[in-house]
């Protein structure tokens, strides 16, 4: 059977590799989103944390006048930081699901298909990007309730969505890389907890870089979360601005994402070895 038949079926994918790559990625993203819509429990539980940060931490720290936030109030300053934080915390544990899929044999089957390894990883990053949109909705509602001035221009909202999708894709792919290295849920949980707090505190999410000691400022400049927060601060808040400029913010994020994607592409097959 078959040899000829198979060559005909897959001929189009060989002729247009980029189109084939995107189609495979979207097929993966589509099933991931279907699963999320059927069981959105995780999204709701993850929405609790930003509420606590903004309502409790934010309100208390807005009384401290020593944090230089420019022309905007502290609550408005930290709101994009908390959006970035909820994107980070949600995406960084994505690797757990990957390890679970490995244990079930789902990844074995995906890797035996002719789909490109990169498209399997990219599809997961796309779905993680969409998951981040739910965090955007939660934070926007919260910001409205707290009386924080938001920018409603379509380009600003599209920019926020793009930033969040890219940030979510970066940290979920990073999480996938960690999963490929540690391979077990127990080890991953420990490392996941270990990573989130340094990434969050060594960024400009809840205080500006100028407050940090010089060594920490250097670390923060290497942290992709800093650029996610910076782009969100410029796009989301009335009176907010990007310190590094959107070109640098998006450039750094895209660069980091592509590097992570290339690493994940190489490591993903090792999950089943």
């Amino acid at each position, binding site marked *: 059977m078959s040899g000829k038949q198979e060559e005909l079926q897959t001929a189009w994918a060989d002729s247009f590799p980029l189109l084939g790559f995107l189609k495979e990625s979207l097929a993966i993203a589509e099933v991931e989103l279907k699963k999320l819509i059927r069981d959105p429990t995780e999204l709701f539980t993850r929405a609790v944390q930003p509420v606590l940060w903004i309502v409790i931490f934010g309100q208390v720290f807005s009384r401290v006048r020593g944090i230089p936030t420019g022309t905007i109030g502290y609550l408005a300053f930290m709101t994009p930081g908390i959006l970035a934080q909820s994107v980070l915390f949600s995406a960084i544990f994505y690797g757990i699901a990957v390890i679970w899929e490995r*244990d079930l044999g789902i990844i074995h089957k995906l890797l*035996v298909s002719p789909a490109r390894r990169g498209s399997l990883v990219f599809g997961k990053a796309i779905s993680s990007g969409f998951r981040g949109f739910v965090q955007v909705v939660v934070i926007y509602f919260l910001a409205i309730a707290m009386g924080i001035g938001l920018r409603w221009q379509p380009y600003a909202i599209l920019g926020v969505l793009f930033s969040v999708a890219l940030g979510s894709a970066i940290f979920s792919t990073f999480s996938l890389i960690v999963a490929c290295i540690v391979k077990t849920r127990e080890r991953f949980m420990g490392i996941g907890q270990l990573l989130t707090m340094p990434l969050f505190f060594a960024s400009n999410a809840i205080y500006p870089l100028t407050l940090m000691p010089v060594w920490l400022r250097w670390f923060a400049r290497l942290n992709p979360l800093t650029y996610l927060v910076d782009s969100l601060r410029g796009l989301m808040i009335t009176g907010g601005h990007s310190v590094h400029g959107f070109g640098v913010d998006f450039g750094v994020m895209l660069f980091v994402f592509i590097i992570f994607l290339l690493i994940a592409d190489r490591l993903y097959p090792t999950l089943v070895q």
Partner: protein
Amino acid sequence: MKEQPTAYPSPGKSMDFDDTENRVMSGSWAIETNGLTMRFGDFTAVDAINLKVSHGKIFGLLGPNGAGKTTTIKMFTTLLKPTAGAAIVAGFDVGSFPAEVRKRIGYVPQMLSADGALTAYENLMLSAKLYGMKRPDRKGRIADALNFMGLNNSSHKLVKTYSGGMIRRLELAQAMLHRPGVLFLDEPTIGLDPVARRIVWERLIALKEKYGITILITTHDMEEADQLCDEIAIMHHGKIAATGSPASLKASVEPGANLHDVFVYYSGGSIEEGGNYRDVRKTRRTANRLG
């Protein structure tokens, strides 16, 4: 310019391995190996095995847990790159042309790999897309596969509501969707009740007869090997201890021998022995999911 892989081998010629290029030149077997070896550090999981599997047959790799069956199947399905030697599957060398091999094979891992959070139809649609099937062909192929496996009436139910036997049949439907030349099944009936097991056997034989697919299964179930396989190879400590048809192997031991006697005769141990903690845990996990 990148060199194109050799197309399907012409029938009637024997395989000729080129050690320097590690490419297949020609061949007449669905699967053929030459000194296929897999080492993990100092441990040799698969030790220079030589196998030939005819087209359109069901071939069983028998052995206890830890014999090297799963490692062998992982090399055949391109999940592991051999440390030494070569394997030609569906006309292509697994080490040099893994992408070509993947287009032509189907695989059902030992674990229950259908996604429980999706319906059977969605699982099949994902496979159809990942195998690059054209949109007009997808629905027809999926309907055929569901029909062949007797799953039409439950195709829009979530797979997590399925019985173990139904999940296995769905996985077979996924693996046959793109009409592979060779189908690999790792312990296909492990943990299934006797009725579900017989249904799976019957579907596998129907797959072979209707579509002419070559099927390689690993098993440590002697009854399964006896009922299902045209030919078997007994693996022990990473080596092939014996190969042949079940009848010829039994006859080679003594009149009235069964396959368990054959195994003891050729390997010096029982099929129930062997396997490390990891092997046993994986087997039990699958059995637990099947209830």
